[in-house]
């Protein structure tokens, strides 16, 4: 558990479109230990998916480029690896579940062949052995093995997502990156898929980076959580710290904007305004234009990520004061 499986140091990613520089990620640092599930939460454009693609070495270049930072996987810097080496890691060591199950499968290959492809690519096995393993994977995610020869369009959304999960887990990766794995699914199917992911996590001891905008899903499966806003981490810590002792005004706003079935309140507290344009980020704290507690200092200096209590980090000038007020 103590081994640092993935360590991201001060990652900066930019997209250069025409003459504009879009600052997608502005210096984030993350650590995932063996067997840990980290939730990465934020709204559209916060840089969640870009973070995932950076780890996989899949940032389209151009227009994207990793300007700074290191990504260590088992103490090896992934950014220094050649494309050939990365291909060996992708799918075998680090696998990714993409957001939209409808478009991430190849429509002209049977689902079985798509699972087998990964197995054959990374293991020296015979055709029969690979087919057999692919069938086993299908059954593991709750699809009968007889459906090996069917095409993606013959499956429903929830089943397609299971196939995508089966592909990702086919080579028993150590790190699984799941980008909004349940967003496209209905709630009852989402519950089934989350349940499946939890079981697999326990069975294979896979570490996971779960990207989502749904704090409910995070509460369900994650051990720790990092909240992103405008390409920065604004709050991170273990799940109980962040959920019970929320410190950053943005995180608080997020919690208040969720209509909760268990609460009685009539009106939602919304966060005023919109996410800042990433090609024209505000000076100072990135959240200050929407923050109700902002002062002159917030407009000037961008606060550091500070450790408020062990393991609980917040990027806000006044976070400590909020605690004392409590």
């Amino acid at each position, binding site marked *: 558990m103590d081994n640092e499986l993935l360590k991201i140091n001060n990652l900066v990613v930019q997209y250069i479109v025409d003459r504009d520089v879009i600052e997608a990620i502005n210096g984030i640092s993350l650590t995932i230990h063996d067997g840990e599930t980290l939730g990465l939460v934020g709204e559209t454009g916060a840089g969640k998916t870009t973070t995932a693609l950076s780890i996989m070495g899949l940032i389209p270049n151009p227009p994207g480029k990793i300007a700074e930072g290191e990504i260590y996987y088992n103490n090896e810097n992934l950014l220094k690896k050649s494309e050939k080496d990365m291909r060996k890691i992708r799918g075998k060591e680090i696998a990714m579940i993409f957001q939209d199950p409808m478009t991430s499968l190849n429509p002209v290959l049977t689902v079985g062949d798509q699972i087998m492809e990964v197995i054959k690519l990374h293991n020296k096995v015979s055709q029969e052995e690979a087919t057999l393993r692919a069938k086993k994977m299908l059954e593991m995610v709750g699809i009968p093995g007889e459906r090996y020869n069917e095409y993606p369009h013959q499956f429903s959304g929830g089943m397609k997502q299971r196939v995508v999960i089966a592909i990702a887990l086919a080579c028993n990766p150590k790190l699984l990156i799941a980008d909004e794995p349940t967003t496209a699914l209905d709630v009852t*199917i989402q*519950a089934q898929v989350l349940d499946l992911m939890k079981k697999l996590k326990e069975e294979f001891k896979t570490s996971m980076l779960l990207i989502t905008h749904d704090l409910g899903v995070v509460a369900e499966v994650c051990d720790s959580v990092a909240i992103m806003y405008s390409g920065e981490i604004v709050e991170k810590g273990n799940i109980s710290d962040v*959920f019970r002792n929320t410190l950053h005004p943005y995180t608080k706003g997020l919690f208040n904007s969720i209509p909760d*079935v268990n609460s009685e309140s009539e009106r939602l507290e919304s966060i005023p305004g919109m996410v800042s344009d990433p090609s024209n980020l505000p000076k100072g704290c990135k959240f200050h234009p929407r923050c109700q507690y902002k002062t002159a200092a917030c407009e000037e200096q961008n606060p550091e990520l500070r450790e408020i209590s062990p393991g609980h980090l917040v990027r806000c000038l006044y976070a400590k004061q909020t605690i004392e007020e409590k």
Partner: protein
Amino acid sequence: MKTLLEVNNLKKYFTTKYGMLHAVDDITFKLEAGKTLGVVGESGCGKSTLGRVILHLLNPTSGQIIFSGEDISSPSKAKLHELRKNMQMIFQDPFSSLNPRQTVAQTIGEPLEIYRVCKNKQEYSERVKEIMDVVGLAERFENSYPHELDGGRRQRIGIGRALALNPKFIVCDEPVSALDVSIQAQILNLMQDLQKQLNLTYIFITHDLSVVKHISNDIMVMYLGVMVEKTTTKELFEKQFHPYTKALLSAIPSANLDVNRERILLKGELTSPIEPEEACRFAPRCQYAEEICHSKQPKPIEVVPNHFVACHLVKEINQL
């Protein structure tokens, strides 16, 4: 309170090459003026079709729709034109439901032009500005095109367009599901404010139970074209009688760590709505299903006052 909308035994079947698809099957309900009915269900349960049939964007196969005391089940073209003034729709996807070649002002103003409600240009532009103000769009966006705006603002245009003719009744088809949570809260609050100000009646179609709890007075839960449970919002969240509603509610992931998360996991997925057999549609996934459930379709019965449930075993399951 006055009943604004009454729907009796409404059916909508589609012809497919495999047989008749029962999208909406025998739905009956009443909606009072100024209230909101939430229609909840998973994809493919017929909730959007229901909304569209009520607005006559699709013609009903059979059944009766009564609006303001008038039977509008099969209106003439002229009558329909007149009706649309009072019945509007807000669509799900603010990205594809707006004309990309019309500016904000043109989109909001189009209904005003079609119905020739403004006497002159000045009145027209004043009315457009007024609507933009009501839905919280700054005047500087008047000449912007949809692609220049973000999802929240686009959805505000969609709301503005629906409000332009002062309708009485609006069908909102998943108006916030394409938006981020912080923006979603802004739009939900706006819709609630507008309802109070303008005495609007909503049918709010969504798959998100927490959203529907927030905005609705009554909730109807649909499963494969049929209504399985309907009651007031308060009652539904206190006690659910139908096994599907119970599972649906327990499946919502809650952001509250202290909530007891006991989960009813449903087996399998939606069965086909094409030529369904005479049986309870939920029976193949129901943990309580008995013989009768596989041979007879249950009708909604009023189990306790104003709480309708369509389940053969409702008494046994809930020990009533």
